[in-house]
């Protein structure tokens, strides 16, 4: 089930929370919506879930316009809001029964569907407990079980693993992976390892704008490394550029004695060649460090870049 967002904008009075966000999501993937606190992630999800109307822009989910046909969109989505379900005087299965009725599940299969979701979220043991007496983690899982009712083709999850213990986080990831076989999952999180662990694609939102849209497999290490040697800086740079190419070598920092160079996009053989070259020239090698190309570094790089641009 595809999600198409075009030039989405949302103003709260004088504040612009979401500013010109556009993206296309194809079916059967887990997409992370990451960004710092207050970046507009939840607002985007709320608009996708039809709780908020966009100030401008278009949202299409499964071909239904979220503004003109919110009912059509609601039939396609399962939504876990950031707030936990707080019907404190309801039991877990009563809550799910109510939600199942709202979602139009026929009475004959309602019980089965609830049992399935309870089992999926490991809530069977607490199904007769009051929501108000459950821990935050259990309540979040109850919310997830609600989102999973009717096996919707689109799941919109706002911070689904926050407040869960490590084991529960792992279980939730498994649930999401299983669900992604038939559903498009868009989850928001500010935990980058969480996004890295579960998502196939990440949309980065900063100050209401979509600043990055990357697939995680594009973030695999590319052989870049840093080397710190004791050598004259100008000579060192010139000779290493001759070895690995002029575009690959950049000076990170340097003083009269030591110089740190960053060598990007090279192969393992080039790394070995550089070390041999330095040793052969009798340049002392103090540190050799592989540069990781993970989400966190990508995030830091992007945000730092934005800061630099703003400055």
């Amino acid at each position: 089930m595809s999600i198409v967002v075009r030039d989405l904008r949302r103003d709260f009075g004088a504040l612009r929370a979401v500013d010109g966000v556009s993206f296309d999501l194809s079916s059967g993937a887990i997409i992370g919506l990451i960004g710092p606190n207050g970046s507009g992630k939840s607002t985007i999800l709320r608009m996708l879930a039809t709780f908020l109307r966009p100030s401008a822009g278009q949202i299409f989910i499964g071909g239904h316009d979220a503004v003109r046909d919110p009912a059509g969109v609601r039939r396609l989505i399962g939504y876990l809001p950031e707030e936990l379900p707080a019907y404190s005087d309801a039991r877990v299965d009563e809550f799910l029964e109510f939600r199942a009725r709202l979602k139009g599940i026929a009475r004959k299969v309602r019980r089965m569907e609830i049992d399935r979701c309870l089992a999926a979220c490991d809530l069977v043991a607490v199904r007769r407990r009051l929501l108000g007496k459950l821990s935050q983690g259990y309540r979040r899982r109850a919310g997830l079980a609600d989102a999973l009712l009717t096996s919707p083709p689109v799941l919109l999850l706002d911070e689904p693993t926050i407040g869960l213990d490590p084991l529960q986080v792992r279980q939730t990831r498994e649930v999401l992976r299983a669900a992604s076989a038939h559903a498009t999952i868009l989850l928001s999180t500010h935990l980058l390892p969480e996004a890295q662990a579960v998502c196939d694609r990440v949309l980065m939102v900063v100050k209401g704008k979509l600043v990055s849209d990357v697939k995680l497999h594009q973030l695999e290490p590319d052989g870049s490394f840093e080397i710190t040697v004791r050598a004259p800086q100008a000579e060192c740079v010139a000779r290493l550029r001759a070895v690995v190419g002029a575009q690959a070598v950049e000076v990170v920092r340097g003083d009269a004695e030591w110089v740190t160079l960053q060598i990007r996009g090279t192969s393992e053989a080039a790394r070995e060649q550089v070390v041999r070259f330095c040793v052969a020239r009798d340049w002392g090698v103090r540190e050799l460090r592989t540069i990781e190309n993970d989400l966190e570094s990508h995030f830091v790089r992007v945000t730092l870049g934005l800061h630099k641009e703003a400055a």
Partner: protein
Amino acid sequence: MSPEAPMSSMIPVAKRQVIADGTARPHGSAAGAPHFPLTATKRAAKPACVPTRFGRLRARWLEVGEPALAVFHWEIRAFFLRPAAWVMLLTASLVAGWCFAWLVTLLARGGGASLRTVDDPIVQFLGPNLFLVGLCTLFVPVLTMNSIADERRRGTWELLLTSRVSVGQVLAGKFAALWCALLAALAPWPYFLAVLRVWNGKTRILWGFIPWFDGSGVPFDSGSACGGILGLSVMAATCVALGLFCSSLCRRPASAALLTFVAMTVLLAISFLPRVLDVWGFAREQTDWIETLSCWGQLERLCRGTLRPREFVAQLSFCGTLLWLTAWVARRVDDEIKIDLGRDEVKPTRRTPRRWKSLIALVLALGLANSAARLLPEQVDLTHKRAFTLAPQTQNLLTSLADPVEITILAPREPKTAADRAFAQAAVMFRDLVDLYRQVQPSLVVREWDPRTSADARRLLQLYPDVTTPCVVVRQGHGENSRHEVLHARDLAEVRIARGERPPVVEFFGEQALTAALARLTSGRKQMVVYVLTGHGELSLDDDEPASRQGLGVLAAQWRELDIELRSLDLRAAQHVPVDADLVLLAGGEQPFATDEVAALSRYWAHGGKGLVLCELNYDPQIGGPAGSALESVLADYGLLAGTDRVIMPGVTGSIEAAAPGLPAAGDHPLVRSLSPASVLLYECRSVRSLTQVSHTALRVTPILVSHPAPQAWADGDFSPGVEPEPGGERDLPGPVAMAQAVERRKGDLAQPVLVVVGDAEFISNRSLSQPSGRSGSSFALACLNWLRGRKDLLGDIPPRRNEGYLLPGTPEEQRGLVWKPTLLLSALIVSAGTMVWLSRRGS
């Protein structure tokens, strides 16, 4: 569950819905949801069925009704799971019990007969009394504060609105649930009313251990009680809609409760506003529209037993508008949640409202409903005794009114004298009556002036010197050409106090009086000619002396005011009754009639003439008893016998009184029904007996006035000198004795009046009519005249409105039991149910 287990494996194959492409998915799941291959190809080969009408309806219901019903169940369940709800219900039952104790105290005092239905204790119990108003004003905020504001606070509002349910469906479910919850809190009122109806406090024990009712309770008009329950429901709906609206405006339950409380207070103030404006001198026409807004006023009217469709629909429209506003405001508040993002502000974007369609639909629907309500009658009478329905002749008369008529109530605002107070009581119900008249004929002008302070009132009194205040002046025309009628308190109502087992009774005959007055004013001055027989010592037309017992001048003057011409007729000279005679009046007489005279009278009556025969008792000292008048044979032809006796009724001291009161007889004879309930004082009245061996079967003889029953009164036939009358004599007739009879000649289904025979003539003499009690005599004579004349509209053939008081049976101990036993039972049921719910949830 194992984390590795695929989710699809958790869905049982047997419960999957078959779809056309040979795959299955859970019923209710989305169209784009993954499908699971069927294990049985046989099912996949089944051809797709065309949905039936029932199937389509069911699908539509699942789409529209089911979510709203789910919200309703959820809210109701949430309400009854809260201990606070049971405390609320218990409080409501105790308050209702307290209110019921107040009602029982009122009934035990023997009160209840009121000139106005609004003063009826049952109406006051079910209507907007202090208990009910206070309870609703406090309960509605508590009940509705959680509906939307608390959902927002808890974050569940967002979850709710992103389900497959619209705001309208959510609000419909919530509204219905809160309405039912409030009705549950108000249910003790109808419960206590039902208890009062079926039980009087006496209890007996069945089979030695089961307590059961013993004896029925107080009967009351179930129509107005049903109206009251309907009013409670509408009032509850309005309050809940108001509470929902206030809750939608807030994000905190406490704010919502406070706002709802203020709104409820405003609603209450609106109900009182017309009364305040009335005191400030505003006309009722100017304040009527406020009544439409007041749900409490609506409740009061429904409790009285009147349903005004326009107001009812307006009230429902108010509810609908509030709900629409709630939906609109709820989304507006959601859309404007402000989050401090710590960023630069930008110019807000103005968006076009997207609810125009629903607004137009709402306006159209409400406009249509209110227009349709205008086609309905202005008022529907729910009472069994039709207390708010005008008689057909009144309605006919009002619809045929061509000239403007003014009805002016001349009464002091602050009554000081007993007459003022009596009139004020009658005027209270008269105003309600005039409202009914105006509903049929809006051109009626109604004014109310204080004769002490109003210059207009003084001008009116100068114009009509015969008017004495307090009274109602009914006027047609202007200036010197105007004509008028005057109605006093005695023409409008009479209160009978409770006696023994008989409850107090209020009889209001204002409709009779007012309709008759209008008829007299509007029917034109058709002259009636009455021939008064002379020559036998009858009352004389020429005698105007007020103290005269032989004069008929006072009555003649009154009748001439009504364009009734009275002429003397001496049959000894005329030999026959003139052809222009509408009526022959025989007012007493001491000498017997000649044979020719009797024959002339007999001929006249036999050919359609009419007669008012007032037989005097003539004592002949020569024969030592009553003398005959020679009319006995004629009267016998009409099945009547004027007895040679006199009706005796000893006074309080035991002395024999010369006068005996004649009371309107029982039955529904038009003449009887038109009579004022006040008794007519008759002097040495003869009994007028109905002969059982009437040869003429086409005649119907009906008693009109009767004496008190024996032993209080009897007809004494013993005229022995020096002997005190004693009941039980050989020629005596025990009471109640007929003192006047009416004779009609039947022609098919029609009955034509012929004669009214009264055993006394002195009650219309100048002396009698000059006394304060003489009014009843002249009214009676006029009623007989009009009946004989065949003018039913003038008669006012309209039954009086009778409000009987309630008589609560049982001893004081049993009456106390009537209060505390049902209260205890209800409270125990609520406490038990609440405890059971609490215990069942406690384990979770």
